[in-house]
């Protein structure tokens, strides 16, 4: 297609003439535009951080450091603390990472380690990628009407008989940490699987051949050679998945139950920073409450920025070409 255009130009009269002043002007303005938008990218991120930080700072200095370490959110007395939300964000993302990470890595092994005929591998890969394409609000809906009724009897059975274990110490009435974590893990699984696949694929074929040549079984090769070699990339995949879980909003706002409690129980309702923002921001009082929410947004921004940047750096270092993703 492009070649045709090329030929068309070759027949034209503009061929091998010096650029006209018009051309030069156009060239300069086009290049100026591209530079302007490059700067705009930097400006945009700075502006987002500046704007949210600017709104947060006065409130944060009013509320003090105890904002991060207390657990009451009471707008009628202007008392704000987001410890349960910070805990909920980290805890739910961590649990989701355990689950989604395990499945994601296993699937990456399954796809890359010659278990499957090419066609099946292709289908499985696409299914996993489609999982990521489903909007989180649809997962939320599915969570409310399909997942919760499904897991409630199991959860309440566990609570009944194993209630002394802190993880099962409450009943699952409906919304709660477990449904939110399950949906979160489905959502980060594709990220983990895709980035880990890259890590496995980046291992030179000779490495595996050498392992097999030593007489290892398939799984000895995978566990002792492939996994350690790919570990940097896999770790990066986990960190990126963690970052994705931290920032996710809708699935949590719909499923986590929005309760300011510090809890270990999988079945108790909890809250996360993103869910707090989604639920409270529209009705927050002008003044300290809005400022407190902005501070919460800042905390979230900070956590996700650190995690995502760390993940990107790890992946870029560990897998040659991995930074392209």
């Amino acid at each position, binding site marked *: 297609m492009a070649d045709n255009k090329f030929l068309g130009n070759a027949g034209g009269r503009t061929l091998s003439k010096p650029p006209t002043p018009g051309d030069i002007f156009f060239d300069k303005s086009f290049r100026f535009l591209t530079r302007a938008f490059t700067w705009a990218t930097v400006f945009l991120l700075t502006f987002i951080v500046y704007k949210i930080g600017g709104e947060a700072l006065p409130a944060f200095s009013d509320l003090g450091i105890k904002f991060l370490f207390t657990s009451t959110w009471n707008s*009628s007395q202007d008392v704000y603390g987001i410890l349960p939300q910070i805990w909920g964000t980290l805890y739910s993302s961590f649990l989701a990472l355990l689950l989604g990470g395990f499945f994601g890595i296993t699937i990456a092994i399954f796809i890359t380690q010659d278990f499957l005929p090419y066609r099946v591998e292709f289908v499985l890969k696409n299914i996993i990628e489609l999982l990521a394409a489903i909007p989180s609000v649809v997962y939320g809906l599915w969570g409310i009407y399909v997942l919760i009724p499904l897991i409630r009897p199991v959860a309440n059975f566990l609570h009944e008989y194993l209630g002394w274990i802190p993880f099962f110490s409450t009943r699952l009435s*409906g919304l709660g940490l477990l449904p939110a974590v399950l949906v979160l893990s489905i959502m980060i699984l594709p990220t983990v699987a895709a980035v880990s696949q890259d890590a496995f694929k980046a291992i030179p074929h000779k490495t595996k051949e050498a392992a097999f040549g030593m007489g290892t079984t398939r799984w000895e090769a995978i566990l002792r050679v492939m996994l350690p070699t790919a570990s940097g990339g896999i770790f990066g995949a986990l960190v990126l998945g963690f970052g994705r879980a931290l920032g996710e909003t809708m699935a949590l706002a719909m499923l986590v139950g929005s309760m300011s409690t510090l809890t270990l129980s999988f079945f108790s309702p909890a809250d996360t920073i993103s869910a707090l923002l989604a639920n409270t921001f529209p009705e927050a009082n002008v003044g300290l409450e809005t400022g407190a929410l902005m501070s919460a947004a800042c905390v979230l921004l900070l956590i996700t920025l650190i995690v995502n940047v760390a993940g990107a750096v790890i992946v870029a270092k560990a897998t040659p070409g991995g930074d392209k993703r």
Partner: protein
Amino acid sequence: MKLKSLFNVALSAAVAASFMVVGFATAGTTKITGAGASFPAPIYSEWFKDLAKQNNGEIKVDYQSIGSGSGIKNFIGHTVDFGASDAAMKQSEIDQVPEGVQLLPMTAGEIVLAYNLPGIEGLKLPRDVYPEIFLGNITKWNDAKIVAANPGVELPDTPITVVVRSDKSGTTFGFTGHLSAISSDFQSAVGQGKMVQWPAKNMVKGKKNDGVSSAVRQTPGAIGYTEYGFAKLSRLPMACLENKAGKFVCPGPEGGAAALANAVLPENMIVFINDPAGDASYPIATFTWMLFYKKNKSAELATALRKMVEYCLDEGQKIADKAGYIPLPESVVEKVRAASNNIQ
């Protein structure tokens, strides 16, 4: 600071330019945007649909059911033409509106306790029981006190899941006002507010009246407070409550009207009926208000707003009953009509 204002200027310019391109929605119609309470949302949306039909689309009202807290916030922030709240407005909030505020009660409703116990209808809850449920002191459906009030009813040994609002809500304000009026324990432990710290342990939260009703529907053993119409339309069983006179009254138009008869509307149109007297009164009823600016952006808008109020007071009250709300008593309608002239 300079960068910020520069950006804002550039943005406003861009936005203004796009307005000129897309100026098609304005010809001949006055658009009114309102937002707030979810409590009256079903009836409001019905009213506004009918209103648009009646005057051939001259006045179009778009009402967003976002909860009373958000409604007041948007009203103070001038992002809407009118707000709606069933907790009225606090004086401190009214003071934040330089144009002056006119509150008008538009309809009234009952707050009911909807529950999810398959096969059990018309559960009776005495005055000393339901505050205890919401305090988290009564935690099982077969608690002796509930059993005693419901002879012959087979109550299951399931834990009670309390459903409350996750957002700032006028319904919560009305409900906690009532509970504080009838239980001193509740008053000291929780108190009245649009959003309170509920002490109950086994608890689920729902957003807006919709969310509470929906959570009750989906949670076996749940009980939650919601507007009568929501429970009626979603076919949830509702508890009959013991009123001040010691009679059990089930939710319904008669009980609501009897409760409303207790209300005397003061000059500022704000009155709460926390514990109405009378044998037939349903114990938890509340007015719900629309919030207007006394001085509006344009005379055209003010005229449209007054027309809208007139419709609600006249035609609107006729369908209140069937929609699960209590029509305003005639005396109240007169006062509201007079006050609506303050919308200019």
